[in-house]
């Protein structure tokens, strides 16, 4: 089966592999520690690990878009900021 119609590139492949690896890692984490570790963080509503991953990924997308729109095309610093943001989300939200 050919997937050439999907116009794959190496960067987009790496991007999706990372996303799927994160989701798979969450599945493994859930298997060994079920329940999703719900807690109420600084946003004052209950979040599980899955919620925190979702907030991290969505936030990372907007951080990168804001960087592109306001600063420039070099996204390495935006990626670093997104990682710091995700660590913050998993620690405090």
């Amino acid at each position, binding site marked *: 089966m050919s997937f*050439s119609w999907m116009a794959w590139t190496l*960067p987009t492949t790496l991007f999706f592999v990372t996303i799927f690896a994160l989701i798979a890692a969450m599945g493994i984490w859930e*298997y060994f520690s079920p329940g999703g570790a719900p807690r109420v963080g600084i946003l004052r509503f*209950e979040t599980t690990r899955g919620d925190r991953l979702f907030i991290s990924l969505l936030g990372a997308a907007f951080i990168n878009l804001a960087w592109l*729109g306001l600063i420039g095309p070099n996204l390495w610093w935006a990626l670093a900021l997104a990682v710091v943001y995700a660590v913050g989300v998993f620690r405090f939200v």
Partner: protein
Amino acid sequence: MEKTYNNKAWFFVLPVLLLVLFSAAIPLMTVVNYSVQDTFGNNEFFWAGTGWFTEILNSDRFWAALQRNLLFSVIILALEIPLGIFIALNMPKKGLGVPVCLVLMSLPLLIPWNVVGTIWQVFGRVDIGLLGRTLAILGIDYNYVRDPLDAWVTVIVMDVWHWTSLVVLLCYAGLVSIPDAYYQAAKIDGASRWSVFRFIQLPKMKRVLLIAVLLRFMDSFMIYTEPFVVTGGGPGNSTTFLSIDLVKMAVGQFDLGPAAAMSIVYFLIILLMSWIFYTVMTSSDKDA
């Protein structure tokens, strides 16, 4: 008692996950791939990096369409939600009136979107349309083809006519599920009509209202067919919402790269807004 977890249940959702993979995930991945490339057809692609995103984010055309779309969604929610609640509250709860009202309310929902657009396009015409002609006879200068305000009013009234029924039916379902005991208790306490609404009916409708707000926001934010049929995005660009602009870019101009970048930004905005709505409404539900 400690809660038990059985992860084998995940196998039952596997078929749905596969369906979502083929119907949503794979097309979305393709759009992401297109968004970083340029093509001139013949399935040949050239790397463009993040250029299309930069172009979209610095485009006045995109921000103008986004502002129009947000304004449209806010107006739609502000009109349809209170109106839907009001009609649902005043619908009969028993007797012959129930099926009659339910059928009448369902009718606009059964009409295909392009037919709704065509109905309103003819209805609003100054030369032959019932609405347009009547307004002209009354001396009101109404012409949705020429005047941006008239075009907006027409598109909004059309959407309210088409979709308020959905809010009504959802609210009505919430209302009829309230046991009579609540109303009897309120009557004994001498509660006013407003108190019954505020402390019994509104809290019981919260879940269906959440669904109504989410559905109406997402639908109105993605609206395409009806305004396209009625105004074609005009006059000028006054009713060019994001989806209309996107189709112009992708199909009209065949600019697949910018259109894909715009689709992703559009998708992320809808995802963020829906998540905010859902979180705010469900967390306040838990507090109650």
